[in-house]
């Protein structure tokens, strides 16, 4: 039997769908790594992809994954770098197919095996599940899904690391998944490399913490970092993070030499608390990680050691991410200039609201913000800013309604203010805002036994 390696290096290449296109390329070329991990799926991404698939059954995955693979596959194949990515969205098989075609075109036929993880998509099974007594109650509001069933556009259970492990054990070089957790994509290579057992809760928790640390890409290597933000070097060439993990569950966060950004204890702390609920209970399908047990230490320049992570057994439930049609919204903006910029914007807001009321338009919500004054910090900012001296203010007004016609009419009420409202107004070059369909997020839980992951590995 081949001896197991002492460490495994897992590099983050995308923190979300739309992240820096250069990052994955630089991760595979900038120094030695064993795995490239890429997270594509945010909460509402699945419903966008489901909509694309309903129009064209060959779509429904992160399309820019394919040109990216075209760019990095030859290097990854040559260097033996494996890839885990949830780019498959609601159509992992079509995504894998497209990757396979790309590989063949690159003359990598016979050299690449692709793993596909499915089974997370519950949309076609929803009525059966509801009939079987699975209410899929909203985790935030407690309401049963039956109330919005006819408006559901996507429903996906979060799978964990184990199906990805199975694909790697089956010899996959690239694992394309649907809704696998962000952390599972990093944990799986660790489980696979070190042969961790399904009840090694501390180790699984450590791998989960590693995944959480790098799942947002550069957000742990100097990006969006508040501590000494203007002293962080060369963000133009920011190095995305790399986990160097050992079999005992300890790991170090680092980045390729010669890259920009910074890996510091303070920066890693910021990422650890990002999108955190109860830190003692970070629940994943693979187990529960206790973030109050994490110990951090700076181990040299751009290198932070993480140890001490404790975990607890997984729950019997899986989280389900459901998207449902909610209504329409639109946001319009205008910019008012000095003098009295803020007062002019306020006056325009009053006029606009009166016109909407006079038209008898009904909205679920109308929200006004004054960008430059209070849009981000609200009354806290108004209390301290010199509001009478602002050089310019952007009036930003948004409406939301189940009635598309009302939202449409609202979008026609912005531009007239340029000529028939308060003076010194500009910044309307973008034209009339477009009403947008709202697909809202419905988080729920389901009995684990109702969801079975399916793993296939195919030779290209």
């Amino acid at each position, binding site marked *: 039997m081949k001896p197991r390696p002492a460490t495994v290096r897992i590099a983050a290449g995308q923190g979300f769908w739309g992240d820096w296109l250069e990052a994955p390329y630089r991760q595979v070329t900038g120094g030695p790594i064993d795995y490239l991990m890429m997270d594509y799926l945010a909460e509402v991404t699945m419903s966008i992809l489901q909509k694309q698939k309903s129009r064209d059954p060959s779509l429904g995955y992160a399309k820019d994954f394919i040109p990216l693979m075209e760019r990095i596959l030859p290097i990854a194949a040559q260097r033996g770098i494996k890839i885990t990515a949830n780019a498959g969205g609601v159509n992992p098989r079509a995504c894998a197919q497209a990757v396979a075609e790309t590989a063949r075109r690159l003359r990598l036929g016979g050299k690449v095996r692709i793993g596909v993880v499915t089974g997370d998509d519950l949309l076609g099974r929803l009525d059966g599940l509801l009939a079987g007594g699975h209410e899929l109650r909203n985790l935030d509001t407690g309401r049963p899904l039956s109330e919005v069933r006819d408006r559901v556009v996507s429903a996906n259970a979060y799978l964990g690391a184990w199906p990805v492990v199975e694909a790697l054990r089956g010899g996959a070089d690239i694992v394309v998944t649907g809704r696998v957790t962000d952390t599972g994509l990093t944990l799986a290579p660790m489980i696979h490399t070190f042969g961790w057992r399904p009840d090694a809760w501390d180790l699984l928790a450590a791998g989960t913490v590693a995944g959480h640390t790098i799942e947002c890409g550069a957000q742990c290597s100097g990006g969006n970092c508040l501590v000494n933000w203007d002293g962080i070097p060369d963000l133009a060439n920011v190095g995305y993070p790399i986990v160097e993990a050992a079999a005992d569950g300890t790991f170090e966060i680092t980045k390729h030499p010669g890259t920009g950004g910074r890996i510091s204890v303070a920066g890693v702390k910021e990422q650890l*608390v990002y999108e955190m609920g109860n830190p003692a209970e970070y629940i994943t399908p693979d187990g529960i990680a206790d973030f109050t047990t994490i110990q951090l230490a700076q181990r040299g320049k751009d290198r932070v050691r993480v140890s001490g992570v404790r975990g607890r057994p997984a729950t019997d439930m899986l989280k389900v991410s459901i998207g449902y049609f909610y209504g329409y919204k639109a946001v319009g903006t205008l910019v008012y200039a000095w003098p009295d910029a803020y007062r002019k914007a306020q006056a325009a807001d009053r006029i606009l609201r009166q016109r909407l009321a006079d038209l008898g338009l009904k909205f679920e919500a109308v929200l006004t913000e004054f960008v430059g004054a209070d849009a981000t910090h609200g009354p806290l900012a108004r209390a301290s800013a010199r509001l009478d001296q602002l050089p310019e203010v952007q009036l930003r007004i948004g409406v939301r309604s189940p009635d598309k016609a009302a939202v449409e009419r609202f979008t026609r009420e912005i531009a007239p203010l340029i000529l028939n409202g308060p003076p010194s107004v500009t910044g309307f070059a973008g034209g009339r805002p477009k009403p947008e369909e709202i697909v809202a997020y419905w988080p729920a839980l389901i009995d684990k036994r109702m969801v079975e992951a399916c793993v296939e590995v195919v030779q290209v």
Partner: protein
Amino acid sequence: MRKKATRRARRVRLLDLAHARSGDKGDTANVGLIALEPEYYPILVKHVTAARVARHFKGMISGPVERFELPNLHALNFLLHGALDGGGTISLKTDAQGKVFSTALLRLELELPK
């Protein structure tokens, strides 16, 4: 004399004691507040209570505030419920994902004994 001494206090901005990062989960914003120096952590624990933070964000959030302690990271985690106008895709806010509640919290001024 003694009375006067106990009344004396210094005002300290949270910005000078801590850094922070915030994000969203549905209609809830979370703010992770991290002490800049380990010795500041007990000050945060004592003075930056859930009630104090709820007062700070009055008018900006519609639900309660929860607080969790991470002594290992010298950090506190706050959950601000009802902070995001419905959150995610529903929200009309510029900061629909609660990204800058972090620095809004750092505006808080504490009255510390001299």
